């Protein structure tokens, strides 16, 4: 092995650059957040109808659509690669995801119950609408945060 330090350094930089590109290529698209937001509003509107048939049909279908989209995102469908998210995100990524999910769910439920207590019409629709807009607007920021975490955990970064 007669590798010059400059060559080794260039190889390490290239490795990081390649990994950065694949991580960025496999990021969660913006439309995903808005699609989930639409699903939330559909569920909220169905809940406001209070009609058992609507609740029994619409909520499971919307829930399944959101779940299917989420699984497709995790599996990297249509993006050419499935990144090693468990290894790259580690604990910090999980904390960001759980905190964000609970924040949106908590705000939406809190607002819905608050509106209902205040006697507002269509409380679930309004609350999920607000929660959906928050999700759509802040989702890309979560994607950027997760990307940053993954980039900081790519090969060799922990040593420098």
């Amino acid at each position, binding site marked *: *092995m007669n*590798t010059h*330090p400059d060559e*080794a*350094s260039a*190889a*390490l*930089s*290239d*490795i*990081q*650059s*390649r*990994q*950065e*590109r*694949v*991580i960025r*290529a*496999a990021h969660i698209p913006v439309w995903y957040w808005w699609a989930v937001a639409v699903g939330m509003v559909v569920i909220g509107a169905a809940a406001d109808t209070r009609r058992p048939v609507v609740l029994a049909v619409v909520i499971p279908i919307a829930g399944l659509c959101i779940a299917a989209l989420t699984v497709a995102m995790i599996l*990297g469908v249509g993006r*050419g*690669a*499935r*990144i*090693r998210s468990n*290894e*790259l995100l580690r604990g910090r990524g999980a904390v960001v995801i759980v905190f964000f999910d609970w924040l949106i769910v908590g705000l939406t439920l809190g607002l819905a119950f608050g509106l209902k207590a205040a006697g507002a019409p269509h409380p679930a629709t309004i609350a999920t609408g607000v929660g959906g807009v928050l999700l759509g607007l802040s989702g890309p920021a979560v994607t950027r945060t997760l990307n940053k975490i993954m980039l900081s*955990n*790519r*090969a*060799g*970064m*922990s*040593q*420098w």
Partner: protein
Amino acid sequence: MVSRQSAKFDELIHPPTRLAIVALLAAAEWADFKLIRDEVRLSDSALSKQLTTLEGAGYVEIRKSFVGKRPRTSARLTRTGRAAFQGHVAALQEIVERSGATVIPR
């Protein structure tokens, strides 16, 4: 992503084209042939040749499937390939560290 791994310079991985392929695959569970080809900027035949070499060494697993009626080829690093890559990264880091130089992460 790489814990302090025992350093082992790997001559098979080190050539720039193969290192680019393996580095890309190391960040992924799997990657489509098309994505690898576009990222590494190789022709189909050149990439096939490199992947076959890596597969022959037990570093890469190539998977062929169909999405609808369209054939789809994807590749992933095997456990052996991942260990070789991590050892190679550690070896490169050692070379840099021994020289007293530092690498500023991009």
